[in-house]
């Protein structure tokens, strides 16, 4: 069952198409990652799902209901924004106790969730005195107060140091496993999403370019791709580009990813070392298929480029 079902969502800001005919489903009991670069439309999509932003066109159902100003729905959802803002002069535990009273849960839950995110010692601090990382953890605690069935987090780890990030991701996994919470997490930091997500939607320029279970996407996009590690990626890309069966090349600082025509992978394995020798480029390794979410993301974005061309 899809807890979130968005169909053909469109949102314009003047002439900018922030979200353009976007469709997305988040299945119950899953952890979905919404991946995309800054400005891809992730936050706008999330705001429309949360009912704080009205789409210009399209349909959204969350738990089967329209989210705009939907009071019942809000009681089922926990939200973590990239930049969390709370009344600044109240103490952390006092504010969370207030939130407990808002939802009608016992006030003891405030200390429970603070302890859950390792903020127990900051319970007497004013919210404005929290560091960026602590504030983000506080936002997570705030989102969990009422034991929501669905947690939506927009760039939840953006302000955190690596250890805090890792802790928070552990917490996400714990929540998912122990309390069956469905999560929609947006991020542009791919390795961390690949650690926790079982499905992803890759979004760029307001459109979803790939959407589904991670394994299925790996299979779909990496089958005809070969990853070549080298000390001179750009030079090697130039040499390999001349091969007739090469469909697309993307280069980064550590190597190139080459997409070839069906059944031509072996040819690439044979031809690349010859070309490298000729061009005096050192090959550090060749492997078939994508091995990371980052690589998958590159492939999808590369395909997007081809589609647009």
């Amino acid at each position: 069952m899809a807890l979130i079902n968005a169909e053909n969502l469109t949102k314009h800001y003047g002439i900018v198409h922030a979200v353009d005919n976007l469709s997305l489903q988040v299945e119950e009991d899953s952890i979905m990652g919404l991946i995309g670069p800054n400005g891809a439309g992730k936050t706008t999509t999330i705001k429309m799902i949360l009912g704080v932003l009205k789409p210009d066109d399209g349909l959204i159902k969350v738990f089967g209901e329209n989210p705009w100003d939907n009071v019942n729905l809000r009681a089922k959802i926990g939200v973590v924004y990239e930049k969390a803002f709370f009344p600044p002069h109240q103490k952390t535990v006092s504010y969370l106790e207030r939130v407990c009273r808002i939802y009608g849960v016992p006030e003891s839950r405030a200390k429970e969730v603070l302890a859950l995110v390792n903020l127990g010692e900051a319970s007497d601090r004013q919210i404005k005195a929290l560091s960026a990382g602590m504030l983000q953890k506080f936002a997570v605690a705030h989102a969990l107060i009422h034991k929501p069935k669905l947690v939506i987090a927009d760039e939840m780890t953006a302000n955190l140091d690596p250890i805090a990030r890792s802790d928070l991701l552990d917490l996400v996994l714990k929540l998912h496993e122990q309390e069956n919470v469905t999560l929609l997490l947006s991020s542009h930091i791919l390795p961390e999403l690949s650690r926790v997500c079982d499905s992803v939607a890759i979004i760029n320029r307001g459109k979803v370019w790939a959407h589904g279970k991670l394994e299925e996407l790996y299979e779909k996009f990496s089958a005809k791709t070969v990853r070549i590690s080298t000390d001179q990626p750009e030079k090697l890309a130039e040499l390999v580009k001349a091969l007739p069966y090469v469909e697309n090349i993307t280069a980064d600082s550590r190597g190139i990813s080459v997409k070839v025509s069906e059944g031509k992978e072996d040819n690439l394995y044979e031809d690349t070392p010859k070309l490298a020798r000729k061009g005096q480029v050192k090959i550090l390794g060749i492997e078939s298929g994508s091995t990371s979410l980052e690589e998958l993301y590159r492939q999808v974005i590369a395909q997007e480029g081809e589609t647009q061309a």
Partner: protein
Amino acid sequence: MKKGRPFLEILASAAYEDYRFPILEIFAFLFALGQFAFSNLNVASSLRSEELMIYWLVSSAMGLPLFIFLILIFKNIAYGLGGDLEKGTIQTYLSYPLSRKKILTAKLLSAIGIAVILFFGIQTVALVVQVPALILPNIGLILLLYAANFAYVLLITSIILLFALLIKKGGVALIVGIAVYFAIGIATSIVLLFASLSGSAMFLQAVALLNPATALSAHYGYIPGNIGWNPSLTEVTYYVGANYFITAILFFIAYRYFSRRLSI
């Protein structure tokens, strides 16, 4: 899970932020008491009628406190609502199980409601201390005086509210509100001068729509020159009513916009 009380909690949270340092309110209270204790009663008691005495007492006691509370209300609306929109605190409130209308009502009750209760509490206490015997026989007049003097504040508050919602910036909304306040004040002075020189009350009547206290001044003859306009108290009531009607429309627009259209 027992039933929550989101409205009361958001109201309490907003009030906590709006009234952390009640310096303005304390100052207004002291000023009001000082006014009554040291000067106005002497002047008021020399006036020829009870009605004039009430008018003088209420109007003079309102002067600076009204301005102080006006600044307080403007600040609460501009920073309490505009600032919360700008920073994202409203976004946090919108994650709670409370409708947009109720969130706005909670914020406005904190920003305006509590200030109004404080203001009239102070004014009433001062009046009870000074002229207890005159209050009940003149209650209708006292309420009209309060309503007429406060109408202008609420009208500009509704304009600031609309600006705060439209531009989502607390500081700019406050500047706009103060600019509108002084612009109407300056326009009123020019119109008064024009009216006293020309004897035409037409522009003055237009100003009285925005600030019904002007109609009260005309009724009690406190406008210099011969303007040929001496509205009855019933007419003054119409001006007060018309002003509150305009204010109610502006608040209605703000509510509609916040609950149906405002994207955050």
